[in-house]
């Protein structure tokens, strides 16, 4: 099974929010959708489930365009956490509603998992704390048994206990390869270790599609000091300068090969030490409003 998004475009009050968005998504995959606040993450999710009508482009499951085959929509679920229609309803009533829309909804699993968090079927969504509301949204989404599940900022502002609970639910849900998740977050760190891929949404479109484990395997962050006051050209050509403090430069090499390692050592740096790699370093350019790195002091 495969979900394909092609050339998706959405304008809101004349302003482009999504332009030519395209990606593929398969069950078993956790995709992180990362972008600054206002980048269009929520708009993309709303457009994928037809809550917003797209101005152009297609969403297809196994080649079947959802606009022409609306029955295929049961393969996708998105519960907009900022605008739930069921806030005043009991959990039991919400489950009944979702079971109508999703025939494969697993009620047993929902209530068993809810009981793990001391949530009773008679409780109303509105009365729950923010953290437990987040758990309920994730549980409803996963128990729908839709193969493509979208979660919008599921960790935002939650304490560690709830965060771990949600990560465990997500990990459990993809482990058998039957479900895929698209998780939107403004914070890349939140998806570290969890996402297979990261899609960056920037300037209304997907600017990059990275596999995080590959990126981590190749990238190296070094602190270097050279004898010469000016920085060797090799550094600028192969790396990104993150920080300069006096003679100490911190450089990120996105593709650190053995050959590059030898070339660097041939330059005989006075000091050379590997630093822990921080994902935000790696993707700093994705967040920068102004392009171009720091100048060497």
């Amino acid at each position, binding site marked *: 099974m495969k979900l394909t998004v092609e050339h998706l475009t959405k304008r809101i009050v004349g302003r482009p929010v999504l332009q030519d968005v395209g990606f593929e998504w398969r069950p078993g995959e956790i995709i992180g959708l990362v972008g600054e606040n206002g980048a269009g993450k929520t708009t993309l999710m709303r457009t994928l489930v037809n809550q917003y009508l797209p101005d152009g482009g297609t969403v297809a499951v196994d080649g079947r365009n959802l606009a022409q085959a609306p029955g295929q929509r049961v393969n996708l679920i998105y519960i907009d956490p900022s605008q739930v229609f069921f806030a005043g309803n009991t959990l039991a009533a919400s489950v009944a509603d979702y079971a109508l829309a999703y025939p494969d909804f697993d009620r047993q699993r929902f209530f068993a998992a809810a009981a793990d968090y001391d949530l009773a079927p008679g409780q109303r969504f509105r009365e729950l704390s923010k953290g437990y509301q987040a758990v309920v949204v994730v549980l409803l989404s996963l128990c729908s048994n839709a193969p493509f599940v979208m979660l919008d900022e599921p960790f935002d502002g939650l304490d560690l206990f709830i965060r771990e609970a949600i990560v465990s639910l997500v*990990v459990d849900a993809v482990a058998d390869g039957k479900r895929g998740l698209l998780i939107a977050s403004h914070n890349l760190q939140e998806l570290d270790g969890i996402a*297979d891929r990261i899609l960056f949404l920037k300037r209304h479109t997907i600017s990059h599609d990275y596999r995080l*484990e590959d990126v*981590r395997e190749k990238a190296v*962050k070094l602190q270097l000091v050279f004898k010469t006051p000016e920085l060797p050209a090799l550094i600028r050509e192969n790396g990104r300068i993150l920080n300069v403090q006096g003679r100490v430069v911190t450089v990120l090499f996105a593709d650190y090969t053995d050959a590059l390692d030898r070339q660097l050592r041939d330059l005989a740096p006075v000091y050379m030490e590997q630093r*822990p790699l921080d994902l935000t370093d790696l993707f700093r350019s994705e967040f920068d409003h102004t392009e171009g790195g720091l100048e060497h002091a």
Partner: protein
Amino acid sequence: MDDARFTHLAYYQRLVLQIKQQVTAGILAPGEKLPSVREMAKRSQLNPNTVAKAYKQLEADRVVEVRPGLGSFIAAAQKAPQQAEVSALHQRFAALMVAIQAAGVDQATVQQWVEEEMGHES
């Protein structure tokens, strides 16, 4: 459990090292069953694909053996290391020693490092 020395590695590589450490330290004994991929993913809060990749690597390194339908188990301690693996490791060690000497680290320090890293086996 997350070793600060390994934070520059990919998550699957970290998990491989972590399990190897637990084997050499005797925390995991030969014949012991590793948690399922799903269970380990939940425990370590990692993507199941990452855990599966680590398990595959551990199998390739003969640290664990997969018994079909039963799961992954810690392999019996190796009597003699594989020749190919030894020469590959030797090469990496030689390259590292060049860097160590170029940096001016003396032999006593290196010996101390070796004892620190391997000491728990004696």
